[in-house]
Structures are given as structure tokens and as C-alpha cells.
């Protein structure tokens, strides 16, 4: 890679870091990011960084559907539930869900059909994804330790129901570093309607160094892709050549300052960080500029569609970021519960499941379906692990025209990098109320994802408050059944 130095002046720095700059991505990028980002972040607390075995996947795209995606209406075929339609779910009246007493049994609102050569059942809510079922592997026995959005979101992302723990993306970038010197290693694409329940804590770095927190990319095309990438509002005139003289002067000051302080290597790193920032000003707008995408691609992601388009854009951005070496991309398909609008702002369908899952289902189906197709067509699917999950599922019993929260069962699926498509693991009871066969938690999903990335989840640790913390706490096993 040989992009011009952003200030278009002759580089003055000569040394090891410049050599790495020339190398750009790949190994050089890893070493560079280590130099710039981690060397000074209180070393000595972490261990087990780097690859533990040969990886199958280089990058992860995780699609998160906040609010609680109903597994019984989508991925988890429960004919018995439909047979019991209208019959009491809880004849003793002892059960209390999150917000309601259970209503009667309510079968799937969408018929199920078998798809692909694997013949797995998928509901009619997802016609496009159904066409990709031979690439997808399902965990039907997912469970959460909380039926509340906040704690369950934290658990799905960090393994703990309390806030303050590093998210999976943070652990992965902490363990593996970056493949690119031009973009952040962990990027989050929130729903343009707003942040998910729990907010930015969901992609926080917890007690890991802040460099590992997810960088939010603005998904609104009218905004600059990264906050503070350029001076805003009445300082907009600073963009361009006006910046260069100031940057040069700053460099002079910092050079002179560092020369007399040889024992402080942080100063060098900070000078480097300003160089990297300047590179980001070029690379981030380039990565998010979709004008170069073909008409076929734009159609595939339905970018022009009023409701479906924004999520399609998120998915397309994710593909572009992975292409450019970003390690972990998290896409949110839904926002926070911000008051009763015409449609729920996420999957939390308490009062009208057909309306809300119908709306969000079309969005997820189009975007995620396009993403799988596109990644495969470009040969990226083999090295990219795609994960789709929610924080919990929904009850098989009715709550009016909706369904209440269900932490006892939900489905997550994986595709790509090292996953054996068309398979499934674990199952729920006849009604889909509870995981019964091979119950799984996010620990197992996380352990499996780390495994595919070449990380042993028991070895990647960081010392905090008396304990060597792991993403998987003291749990987790790699789900071999889903691996290719």
C-alpha cells in the first residue's frame, strides 16, 4: 500500500515505524497497531494474546437483533405448538413471564417449509435467507441468564449480565490485533433509528484498554463516518490545506519535546497516533463511500428501499469493512424501545407480533440474505464468520397479539468461516418454551467463534480485580458439531 502521506509533504520521520507504515496491512499492520495502540496500555495484565491454532476465519460480522427475536415464528419449527393452538399453555396458572401471565398456545404466525439440500425448516418470514440455508448452522438451544433487555444484551455481548465487561469484539481485537493500519479493528454499525438497549456499553471494552472498544460508524450517509473525523460546523474551513501548517508545527513541537525525553516511548506512540488519524481521514470516507458499488450490488441490498434500505446499507458497509481488513463488525438490526410508535423500534413484539416481526423480518431477510450471497460471490464467506443472534427469544404462549420475553430458549445461527452449513445443534421442547437438548449459552457461541478465529477461549485472559477474566467466564465449550 502506498497512499500519499495525507499532508502531501515529505515525510520527515525515518525509523522502524515508517518501515511498518510502508508495509501497510498484514503482518506489518498487526505490529503497527501493537506499537501504536497497545504497547502503552498498562502491560502485564493480559495473557494468551495471538493465535493459539490455525484460524478458519479472519473476520467476524455479527448481526444483532435486539428486543428478542421470536424463534418459534422463524427458525425453530414447532408443529406441536400449532396443533395446540388456543389451548391453555399453563393450566395451573403458576407461571409469570416478564410482563404478563401466559396466554394460550400460539403457533407460528408464518408457515414453515423445508429448504435447501439439508431440508431444514424455516418460516416464510425469511424467503431470501431460506435460500441460503445450506450455508447456515443453527443453535436452537440458546438460553440467557436474564429475561430483561439490558442485562440480556450485556450477556449476549460480554458474557456477563452486568455492565462493565468487555464485549466479544473487544476481546477478539485484543487477542488478534488488527489487519489494517487504516481503519479501527472493531467497528459497530448501529441502527439509524438509535442505539440498542444498554447503549454503547454493548460494544465497550470494559476493563480492557479503550483501544479495543468498538468504533461507531455513523450509518447515516449525511454524517461523516466517524465522529470528529473532521472539524465540524463553523470550523469546517479547517479542512484541507489549512490543516497542514498546523499539523506540521505540532509535529515540530512534539519532535523537539520527545528528543529530550528519550525514556518516554509513549511520546513516540502519540506522534504516530496523529499520523494514523490523518490516514483515517482518507480511509474512512473511502470505505463508506458506496458510489463505486455496482447497480447490481445496490439492488441486491435494496439500498433505495425506504424501510429495508438502511439495513442493507449497514450490511454492505460491513462487507466493505471486512474487505479492508476490519477484524470485527457488529451490525444492529433494531434500536431501543423508545415509546410506542406505529412499529416497535426493535424486535420486542409484545402487542403485535405480526406487525413488528413482519416489518423487521423483511429488513433482516433482505440485508442478511444479500450479505451472505455477496460474501460468497466474492469468495469472502470462507474467511468471514457471520453470526446472527438476539438477546433472548419469545414465549410460545400468546400475550394478546404478541409474545412475552423468553430467556429459556432462542436460536442463533452462524455461517461462513469454518462453519458446516445446513446443520443444527440442540433443540427446544415440543412447544419451544425451553432448551432441552444440549442447552447452550452465549459462552458456547463465543467459545466457538473464538475457536474459528484461532483463539482458545480459556487462554485469552486479562487480569482484573483479583481474577484473570475471560470472555467465557468459567464456562463455554466449542460446538464441534457445527464446524466444517
Amino acid at each position, binding site marked *: 500500500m502506498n497512499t500519499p502521506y495525507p499532508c502531501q509533504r515529505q515525510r520527515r520521520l525515518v525509523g522502524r515505524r515508517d518501515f511498518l507504515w510502508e508495509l501497510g496491512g498484514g503482518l506489518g499492520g498487526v505490529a503497527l497497531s501493537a506499537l*501504536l*495502540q497497545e504497547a502503552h*496500555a498498562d502491560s502485564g495484565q493480559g495473557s494468551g494474546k495471538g493465535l493459539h491454532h490455525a484460524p478458519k476465519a479472519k473476520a467476524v460480522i455479527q448481526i444483532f437483533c435486539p428486543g428478542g427475536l421470536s424463534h418459534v415464528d422463524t427458525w425453530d419449527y414447532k408443529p406441536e405448538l400449532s396443533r395446540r393452538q388456543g389451548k391453555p399453555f399453563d393450566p395451573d396458572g403458576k407461571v*409469570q413471564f*416478564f*410482563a404478563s401471565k401466559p396466554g394460550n398456545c400460539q403457533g407460528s404466525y408464518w408457515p414453515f417449509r423445508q429448504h435447501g439440500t439439508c431440508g431444514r425448516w424455516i418460516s416464510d418470514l425469511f424467503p431470501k435467507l431460506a435460500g441460503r440455508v445450506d450455508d447456515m448452522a443453527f443453535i436452537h438451544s440458546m438460553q440467557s441468564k*436474564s*429475561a*430483561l433487555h439490558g*442485562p440480556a444484551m450485556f450477556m449476549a455481548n460480554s458474557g456477563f*449480565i*452486568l*455492565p462493565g465487561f468487555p464485549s466479544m469484539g473487544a476481546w477478539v481485537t485484543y487477542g488478534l490485533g488488527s489487519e489494517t493500519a487504516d481503519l*479501527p479493528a472493531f467497528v459497530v454499525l448501529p441502527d439509524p433509528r*438509535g*442505539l440498542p*438497549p444498554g*447503549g454503547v*456499553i454493548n460494544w*465497550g471494552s*470494559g*476493563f480492557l484498554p*479503550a*483501544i479495543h*472498544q468498538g468504533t461507531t460508524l455513523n450509518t447515516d450517509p449525511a454524517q461523516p463516518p466517524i465522529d*470528529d*473525523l473532521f*472539524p*465540524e*460546523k463553523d*470550523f469546517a474551513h479547517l479542512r484541507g490545506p489549512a490543516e497542514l*501548517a*498546523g*499539523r506540521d*508545527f*505540532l509535529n*515540530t*513541537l*512534539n519532535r*523537539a519535546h520527545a528528543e529530550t*525525553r528519550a*525514556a*518516554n516511548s*509513549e*511520546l513516540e*506512540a*502519540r506522534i504516530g*497516533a*496523529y499520523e494514523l*488519524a490523518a490516514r*483515517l481521514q482518507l480511509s474512512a470516507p473511502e470505505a463508506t463511500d458506496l458510489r463505486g458499488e455496482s447497480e447490481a450490488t445496490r439492488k441486491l441490498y435494496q439500498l433505495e428501499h425506504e424501510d429495508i434500505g438502511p439495513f442493507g446499507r449497514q450490511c454492505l458497509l460491513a462487507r466493505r469493512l471486512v474487505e479492508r481488513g476490519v477484524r470485527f463488525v457488529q451490525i444492529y438490526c433494531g434500536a*431501543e*424501545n*423508545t*415509546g*410506542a410508535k406505529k412499529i416497535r423500534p426493535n424486535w420486542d413484539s409484545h402487542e403485535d407480533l405480526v406487525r413488528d416481526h413482519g416489518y423487521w423480518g423483511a429488513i433482516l431477510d433482505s440485508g442478511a440474505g444479500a450479505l451472505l450471497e455477496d460474501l460468497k460471490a466474492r469468495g469472502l464467506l470462507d474467511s468471514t464468520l457471520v453470526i446472527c443472534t438476539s438477546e433472548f427469544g419469545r414465549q410460545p404462549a400468546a400475550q*394478546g397479539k404478541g409474545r412475552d420475553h423468553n430467556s429459556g430458549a432462542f436460536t442463533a445461527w452462524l455461517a461462513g468461516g469454518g462453519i458446516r452449513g445446513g446443520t443444527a445443534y440442540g433443540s427446544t421442547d415440543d412447544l419451544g418454551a425451553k432448551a432441552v437438548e444440549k442447552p447452550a449459552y452465549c459462552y458456547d457461541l463465543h467459545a466457538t467463534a473464538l475457536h474459528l478465529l484461532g483463539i482458545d477461549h480459556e487462554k485469552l485472559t486479562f487480569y482484573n*480485580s*483479583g481474577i*484473570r477474566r475471560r470472555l467465557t467466564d468459567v464456562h463455554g465449550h466449542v460446538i464441534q458439531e457445527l464446524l466444517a
Partner: protein
Amino acid sequence: MPRPATLAFSVLAFAPALLGATVDFDREIRPLLREKCVECHGPKKNKGSLRLDAKVHLFKGGESGPVVVAGLPAQSPLLERVTTEEEDQKMPPKGERLSAEQVQKIQQWIAEGAVWPENDADRAAARDPRLDHWSVQPVQTELGAAKSVDDFVEAKRISAGLTAAPEADRRTLIRRLSFDLHGLPPSPEQVERFVQDPDPRAYENLVDQLLASPRYGERWARHWLDIAHYADTHGFERDQLRPNAWRYRDYVIAAFNADKPYDQFVREQIAGDVLAPGDPQSVTATGFLAAGPWDFVGHVETKSDVLKRAARAGDLDDMVTQVMTSTMAVTMNCARCHDHKLDPITQQEYYGLWAVFSGVKRSDRNIDAAAEGLYNSEKARLTKQLGVLRAEIARLSGHGFELASLLPPDSGIDRRNGTVTKEKQGYYRDLRTNYLQKVDKVPGVLAVFVPDGKSPVFVADKTPVKGVPESSGHAWDTIANRPLNAQRGTQLNGADYAGKGHSLLGLHANGGITFDLPAIQERSGLRAMRLTGVVGFGAAEAAAGTRADFSVYVDAELKFQRTRMRKDETAVLDVQIPAEAKTLTLVATDGGDGIGSDLLFLGDPKLQPADPVLTGVDEVRLKAARDEARATEAALAQLAEPARVYAAVPQAETPVIRVNRRGNPEDTGVEVTPSAFAWAKHAPAALGGNDLPEGQRRKVLADWIVHPKNPLTRRVIVNRLWHHHFGQGIVTTPSDFGLGGDRPSHPELLDWLAGELLRNGWRLKPVHRLIVTSAAYRQSSQRMDPKAENVDSGNRLLWRQNPRRLDAESLRDAVLATSGKLDLTPGGPGFKDFDYTEAYAPIYRYVAHEKPELWRRSIYRFIVRTTPHRFMSALDCPDPANLTPARIRTTTAIQALALSNNEFMLRQARHLATRVENESAARSEAIRRAFALAFQRPPTEPEQRAAETLLSEQGLFALCRALLNANEFCYLD
């Protein structure tokens, strides 16, 4: 597994020998074990986790349980294993088996009670080595009061063959000291004064000055709030405001400034409300226990008891963890699911600490019982007075006609069919919205309807109206002359409308009711009328956030409307109705956030004569009564609510705590009593029985923590001070003094400082003084000794001072101080540098307005948990979900972008440019001034030249922006 038959045989076989003398363990058994067993079951191999080389090991047994049951040979696997013939069972597995006589000796020894006299090795083995861990040993007291910090530091450093750096120059020193003690840069004038000060004690004087300034408390409170994980919102999904949390923050600042003895500081924060219930400061201190996050949905909103118990478990864990790690650096929370893996702390002890706090919850509370009482009695008096006046006004102006009286007693109108029913109804599943449902059976009422505001709304035949707010179109319960189904309260502004002499009309959103005015005129004899009454909510306090609207139409004309009323708001109605009007319609809608908790009702809804016929005397009195009523209303509105704080609130009940097996609140084990832990053996761990009153539990724990003989508490706090003065502690894990943590680089120094703390009456300022006046602190941060980095790269031996980057708060404050915009207003509610939107989960959007209030010190920032301040986070400001004993420091491109381009930085750079321009006459002077403000030094010759070039090309702003981004600005030498 023992097989009785075999055993019986072996016992029989040696039965005659039973008649012999008592077995001598040391002569007959110990050598036998050593010879036959210890090779595999000893210190080397430890197979099956079984050791037989010392008493404690044998009786503990191995993986499959005990191996010897004293007195019962037949139940002792040891005997079984040496006699069995089974290949995979027999012991020893290889080599010669035990002789019949040896087996008999073992059998007899067990039968005789397995007596094992202890020798030294037994005693040594019985001792848990973790009990010898350095941090729980008593603090050494024989270190000599005449010593100094440098005595200890030098001794260590010299023994490693390292030399210290020379003392830093005065400019460096004042900058270092000022940031350390105040979190702010010194002004150029202060620097100049100090550099020129001929007094040999100039440095000591400066230390005293800085410690005496209120800026000191503002700086050091930040460190304490980091380990209290303080914030101004709840966190979790619904991250609501804590408008009264700041009083605790101010308490911490005041405590540092007053140099409150540390033991008292700790005691007050754990049990201040018990120690001095009449002292507002002491009560406020318990904000400490409530400082962490709290899940509203889990505690209040969910209907599931399982989820509520889980939330409470998280709550108690948070309190216990915070108290124990902050004061004693013990990682107590590691014992939540099992005994602590590293430290000898049991799971039962952990839950014993839950029992200490089981009777407290987090909430807003009064801090001054007297003021609270005064407020309540005054409010009651005024409310009563107002009630009397209103009744008088009602009597004088004519009684009017009670709307609720149109309905039969204790009944309501079914919104689906317009019939009258005594039944309470809930959520209507099968309702037609925007449909005008005729009401035939209630003279005076024409119709009811449920509007959604999206389709046309008719309040009567051929009477469409405009302005009905959009709503969900859902509805709850009948329109009733009684409290609604699930209604929590019937009081508004202190008057109970379900009480005698009052009437009440329940109108839950969404719904409307249209009255037939001609019919009412006929019935009451009234002509032109006024509708009077008060509208409010009968919802629970917890629902205060949700909104509703209320509208009144006379015919098609909107006469009154309040939108998005909160639950704690009311509206007084006084609507004129002309004599010829045909219909009166009342409409309640859901405020756009669903119908949850929209329990709207009207208190005393009446139609009164518009122009009452009064005698002269009455008229005078009526006017006077109305004036008095207005004055009383104003007095009520002005009555200042007494001060509150978000803090610990004792509950009526103190639930008994049981061990949660594997940390699961749904799987409880043995009951526990309030306790600390036995590892720190300065005082008994048991704090009392379960009959100990709630407040006493906390008091006893607080006393246990600040016990002068507690080996941890004093060491922990002096190490925290050291940590912040040197960038790393004597123990580098300031909140973990356990076996997983660091060991002290200078154990004697740590103990000496802990002793100095006690000698100085637990006051911290004298300890600060000892540290910052030491040569170790005052030395340069330059590396002078080239080999030092190889010998001690981490600088544990202090061969120089550590250079440090400013933390997020100091950097922000330094920018403001440099630009001249820093507002030093102390205390009070935090400044909100965000736009706030009320919602189910409130939305916080950060802004950089040009408001002096937003330029206050960072300690006064209103801290939002779920939406951290991006700029501050980029600079490593920690997530307040975590207890943060030490800030992590990263160097990132995002940080560089934030400092270069964030609006706050750019605006302040502009202010700095203006300031420099105003404070200097010439260009060269401007550059000097800018350097003095930002770096506390003049520019060098090359810097001056480069700055002049920049100035002429790009102006002063570019120079100022660069200075605020410079490494020298962000780092301390």
C-alpha cells in the same frame, strides 16, 4: 468402594492380634505410611489429590472423600485398599504389598480412634500458607517515627545499585504538583513567583498552599468516585436520571477539603445515617452505598419474582464488592459462586456480607429529618387551608352540578357497548377505535368513544373535532365514578377525591365522554356554566415518566388542552360554557407513549353557574376567598422541597440471607448471619446474629473495617495516595491486596506510611505532605542512569519520577484553564453538556454549547452511564459500571481526532487565541504568552521561529490549536 464381605474376612483373619497392646503411631504407623504410601501420596505426586504425609492431609482425604474414619476400620477406604485383591483398586499398586501384620496394625490403629500425635511437620502442614500472606500480617509499628520516605526508597534503590535522578527544576515541579494536587495547571504568574522565590522552603510552602485550596478536594474526590463507580443515572436499559446523586459527590469533595479523618470518612459512608441521623452530611455520605448502577426494569418494572430476585442479587453483590474492594482491596466478589479461588475467603463469608446490607436499598432520601418534617407539616397545613378555601368558594359561587353524579353509585360505562356496569374492566382487546358509542341508559351522557387521533374523531353526531392528539388507540377500564381498576391513589394536591364531600370521575386513556348539556340544564336549572375541577393521575410514583394528554371540547371547539402531562402534574379546570352549547366532551389520550399507567381522573368535576347571583357581602368574601386561595396555591408551589440525596435507604424488613449455591438466587443453601471475613484476623469476623438491627449491622462492619489493627485498611489508602502521586502504587494493584495481586515494592515504607496515617489521626493531608516533599517525588522524570532500564524497567525502585499523561478530566480542565474559560463555581447539581429527551430509555445527546456553565470543572459533570461522553471516553475516562482503582492509558488515533477536531477543543482553541491576543501587545509577545499559558515556559528559539511562521500563515488560532494538542500539554514530566 468398600465391599463389606472382603472387609469382614480381613478383619476376622487378624482378629487374634486385636488383643495386643495399643498401637504406637509414631513407631508403627508413620514409618509405614512413609515407606509404602507417601511416594505417590505426598508432596511430590499427590495422586488422587490425596496426601498421607501429614495429619491434616490424611484426615482431609482425597478426590473420593475421606480415607480414614476414626474408630470404624470397616468404613475406612485406606484399610480396604491395602487388603483388596482387585487389580485396579489395590494399594500400593506396584511392588510389595503390606504384610498381614502391617495391615493388622492399621486396622487396629483406626479401631483405636486413629490417634495421630502432631509433630512439627504436621503442624507446619496444617497451616494454610495463605494465612501468611503479607497483606494480612499486622502493620509493622517498629519502623521509627523519625524516618522519612526517602530512607526507605534510598535503601532499596542503593541495594539494587541504582542512582536517583536529580531534583526536577522548579517549573517542572510546580506543574507536577499542581496537576497532582489540583488537577489543574499553574498560572504563568504562579510559576514565575515560585521560580523566583528565594525562600529555601518555597517548595514546602507551595505544598501547603495547594493542600489548603478547595481545588484539592475537587481533584482527589475524583479518585475516590472512581472506586465508588459514581454516576448521575441508573444505567442498564432504562438509564434514568438521579437528580440528587450530586450531594454525595459534594460530600466527598468537602470531606477531602476538610481533611476529614479517613476512618470517619469510611464509617460515615457505610453507616452515616445510623451514626449521626441528625447530621445531614453524615446521612449524605451513604450515597456511597448507592453510587453504582441499578436496574429499574429488574427491580420495579418486571412482574416476575425470579427476575426481581436476580436484580436484587446483583444489587447486593455490587454494594458488598464496592465496600470491600475500596476500603480493604479484597476481591470479595470472587466468592459469590464458590469459595475464593486464591484467597482464603469462603462463600459463606461473602454472603455474611450480604446479610450486612440486606436491609438497605438505593433510593432518593431526605438528608435532614427536621427539615423534612417541617416541609411535610407546612405542606399539609397549606393543602388543608386550600381545601377549606375551595369549599368556601364552591359554596359562595353556587354548589353547581356534580358530573360524576350522573352515573349510579360505584359504577362505570362499558366503552364497548355504552351500558352501565359495576364490573371493573381491564384492557379492552376488542374495541372499535374512533367509533361513537351511544349511551342510552345514562341521562346527561350522550356517548363514549376511543380516539386514536389519526382518523377523524366525532364527539357527537355530525360533530367532528380537531386537535385530538395521536395515540395508540388502546383503552383500559370503564369510565367510572370511582377509582379505576388498578388505580393506586385518589389524591391530587393533597385532597382525597374518594373522600367524603368529594367526587371523582375516572377516565383512563384513551377515551372520551360527551355530556348532553340541554339535559343537564334541565336537570340542574343552570344556564351558562363553568366546568371546574382538577385533572391528575392515580398512577404509582414509579410511573412518573410516562405521559398523557387531556382535552375539553364544548361542541366542536377545543376549550382546554394539556399535552404530555407527567404523572406528578395536575391541571385545574375552569372552562366557560355558553348557555346555548349542546355538548361538553372530555378526552384523555396517552401522550404518545402507550397507555401504561395513564390512570387519568377528574377530582370534583362540576358544572357551576357562570354568573352566580350573590349578595354584596358574599361577593366581597368570594373575592377575598379567591385571593386567599391563589396566595395559598402560590405558597404551596414555592414551598421548597427539602434536600434529598440518592443514597442508602433502610427498609422495614431485613430479609434473612442464605448462601446462593453457585451464585444462583433460585438455589439457596444455609442461612448466614452478618459477618466479615476471618482472613483479616484483627477482630472476629462474626458481626452478630440475625436479630441485629439493620443499621447496627452496617455500623459494626464499618467499625471492623476501620479498626486500628485492621492490617489492610490503612495500607490500602496510603497505597492509593502513593499510586496517584507516582502513577503506580507501592502495590501496583491498588484494589487487590490478595494472593492474585501484586506484592509491595517497599513493604516497610507501606507500613511506615500506614503508621504515619494513624499517628496523624487518620488525616490524609499529612501523608500527602510526606510523599510529595520527598526527594523521590521531587526527582526528575529523565533517565539519568543508563542501566536503570535494564535492572528495573518498571521503575519500581524509583530511580526517577514517572512521566504521566493527564487523565481525561485533568486534560479537559487544563484546556479550560488555559483558554481562560474555566468556571470555578463549586458544588451543586452537575452541569449537563447534553440535550435530554424523555423516553422509555431517555436519550442523551452531547453538545458543546457556548455556555459558561458547561465550562465548570469535570468533577461537576453530570455523568450518564449508558451514554458515556465520547470525548472523555476517548481519553480513557472509565465506564462507571466498573470500580476503577487505576486508569488505563491508551494512545489511539481516535484520541488524536478528538483532540484535533472535537468542537469543544476547537472552541477552546479559539478562546485561547482571543485571550492571548487580549493579553499581549505584539506578535512575539503573543507567542510567549501562549507558550506560558499552555506549557508554563517560554518558547525556545526554534519554536519561536516556527510559531511566527505559523502565525503569519494561519493566524493565532492555528498556533493555539497545536499547543493544546502537543505532547507537552498532555504529559507531566
